[in-house]
């Protein structure tokens, strides 16, 4: 047993922190959000130069072939710095291409992603619809030489700037939803793809709505040698997404807590630092408890997903659901407590705390409610319910 990050991981994290402090300091992020400016291209290029865009891609495609635990060192720092831009959409969509795309597609897409030449987006679930493993409200009709795709999704992170979109669609009729989900790589410029940018609470991701109106997709743009590979791709991409969001939340919650704790040491009321009052002090202790609980389960979940053999006591799906459920509650608790410790200043535009609050809520809303993750936890622990009664 060794619960420390190794030297290389510590180096990766230090470099990430330095890069973000230099290229995207928090005051700068604050300013970008205020002016609704997306992440500048040169920063993205810098991320590519650091190797982040290919962090977990194999060296064959120019990637670094790192583990998820390695990657987590970068993700936590991104969360800490509230780094904007379509990193997570690109990361997860590229991972889908890696897992399911034909060799030709991988060769064409992945090296370009690694070099920062392509932004990707992933359109997987429909808000208000089922948040189950089978994806969203996109449907694919088989047609000669390929597929016709239909459907819409309200908000897709990173879509506005995406050069390619990975779409999870159900093959055939809605009733067959459990049989076949498949992933397709879509060119956003082809006929029938309608994209409309949206203003968002959290400027970390641009978001846009996506409508597919009989979009013709050639067969070679199907991910997976056959459509049946979709579910396994989906499961692994889901786990990556859940883990990534959790480390984003961990870094953000840690930072929000630190800001509040430092303030509690210097702000005085009734002649004493407010941190000497138990109402404040115990909120700080509860924040640290929550953050360290998330840290504990996140480092374990990354290890479970990295392991070549399945862990004795947990599937990757269980680890992902647990870490995601913990992240949703933790980030929310921390921004609430941190705001209360900081008092009125935390509720101004000038202060950075609202950036954390917005990020926490956006992460929590973007990919399904707590109950969905709780049900996975229950299912994986033998608390399954009768079929047909699941729902979002």
């Amino acid at each position, binding site marked *: 047993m060794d619960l420390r990050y190794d030297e290389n991981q510590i180096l990766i994290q230090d470099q990430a922190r330095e890069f973000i402090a230099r290229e995207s300091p928090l005051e700068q992020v604050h300013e970008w959000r205020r002016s609704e400016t997306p992440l500048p291209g040169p920063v993205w290029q810098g991320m590519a130069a650091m190797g982040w865009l290919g962090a977990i891609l194999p060296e064959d495609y120019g990637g670094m072939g790192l583990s998820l635990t390695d990657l987590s060192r970068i993700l936590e720092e991104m969360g800490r710095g509230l780094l904007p831009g379509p990193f997570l959409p690109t990361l997860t969509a590229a991972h889908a291409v890696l897992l399911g795309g034909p060799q030709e597609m991988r060769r064409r897409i992945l090296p370009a992603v690694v070099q920062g030449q392509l932004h990707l987006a992933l359109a997987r679930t429909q*808000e*208000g619809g089922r*948040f189950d493993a089978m994806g969203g409200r996109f449907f694919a009709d088989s047609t000669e030489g390929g597929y016709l795709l239909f459907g819409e999704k*309200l*908000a897709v992170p990173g879509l506005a700037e995406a050069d390619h979109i990975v779409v999870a669609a159900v093959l055939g009729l809605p009733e067959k939803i459990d049989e076949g989900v498949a992933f397709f790589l879509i060119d956003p410029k082809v006929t029938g793809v309608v994209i*409309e940018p*949206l*203003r*968002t*609470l*959290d400027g970390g991701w641009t*978001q846009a*709505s996506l409508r597919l109106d009989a979009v013709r997709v050639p067969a070679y743009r199907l991910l997976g040698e056959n459509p049946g590979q979709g579910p396994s791709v989906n499961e692994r991409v889901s786990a990556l997404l859940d883990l990534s969001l959790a480390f984003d939340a961990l870094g953000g919650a840690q930072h929000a807590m630190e800001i509040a704790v430092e303030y509690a040491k210097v702000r*005085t*009321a*009734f*002649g*004493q630092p407010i941190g*000497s*009052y138990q*109402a*404040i002090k115990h909120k700080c202790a509860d924040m640290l408890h929550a953050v360290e609980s998330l840290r504990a389960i996140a480092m374990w979940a990354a290890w479970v997903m990295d392991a070549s053999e399945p862990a004795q006591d947990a599937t990757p799906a269980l680890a992902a659901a647990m870490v995601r459920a913990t992240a949703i509650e933790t980030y929310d608790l921390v921004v*609430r407590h941190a*705001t*209360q410790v900081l*008092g*009125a200043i*935390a*509720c*101004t*535009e*000038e*202060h950075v*705390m*609202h950036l954390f*609050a*917005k990020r926490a*809520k*956006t992460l*929590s*809303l*973007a990919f399904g*409610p*707590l*109950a*969905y993750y*709780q*049900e996975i936890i229950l299912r994986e622990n033998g608390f399954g*319910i009768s079929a047909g*009664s*699941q*729902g*979002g």
Partner: protein
Amino acid sequence: MDFRLTEGQERYREAVRHWVADNIPEMEALPYPADPTPEQMRERYALWQRKRFDFRLTCVHWPEAVGGAGLTAMEHFIVTEEIDTLNVAPNLNIIGFGMCLPVILHAGSGEQRNRYIPAALRGEEIWCQLFSEPGAGSDLAGLTTRAEPDGKGWRVNGQKTWTSYAHFADRGLCLARSESSASRHRGLTMFLVDMRREGVSVRPIRINNGDHVFNEVFFDNVYVEPEDVLGEVHGGWKVAIDTLMFERGTSNIHILMRPQIDKVIALAKERLAGAAPTLGNQAARGEIARLITRLKVMDIQGLRVLHGATTGAPPGPEGSFVKLDWSEINQRAQALALDLLGPAGALLGDNPAVPEGGWFPKNWLRSFANTIEAGSSEILRNIVSERILGLPKDAQRQNPNRAR
């Protein structure tokens, strides 16, 4: 035990409703943009307030002599429910009517009452409250804004913050340190300040959702006439405490919060009513049942405050509970709204795909301050446990008898 209004009060409510029905269409017919300028806001406020004044339908619990209707807090409550919750015009003088003017009414001289109260009731003057400072929030007695004698009058120097509506205000109720060597609670004086005077500057504080409600106010050697001292010189702390009592008494903020909470309940009904129980919607159902119940509790506590005020009973803890209730209920309601909306809850803007143009996330952001403003939850819990339950003060707050 009787929760009903008297027959007279019921008739009064009916009369108010009739008046509303008669007068709202005219107001609604007036052009008023969705995103008004400050001038348009002021104009609409003044028009509506003047109309309410003409019919004696504002601050009806104040004496007729100053422009009220000589009725009780009960009728004031009815008017709040029936008129103020409609948001016909921006409520620009809420601080004046809820805090500043009651203090003038109770602590001011006859001259001060006559000069300031009717003008405000006619919609001609707007007030702000100048208490909090960057270094003095919960610990109000730590304030450092100074007032120094200058011939007959005073010169005020310092900085105030969290001043609602200062960018509209003509007048301000300002607490300042008039004797720097005195203990923290003594040596404070309450002033009625002309906000248009030289040396007053107002800088907006935008809140987390971009709205402009609060301000910083800077005083650079601002002259205040001697007749604009409210109450005793160096006796401002008592006046301030009285003001805070008013704030927690008949301010009816919880009634004004209802429309935004009801909006969440309506959203929940649209999403949940009639739907079969699923794994995802049960937590929300439980939360809604809790909110509805707590709202009923809050309403009753509000009535207990009102009843205590009208019967002259000594103030109990109910005022603090109403504040804790509306702030916590609203925070939970606004968070629930976003959870109900899912990803759509994180979208802003006029796009038809965005529910109500992003009202829900903007209001969710606004709600973060609820448990801080108008008495933080921590301070309220101190007040309840010390004043009502008789628990000892924190040791460190027992003798902070130095000005800073």
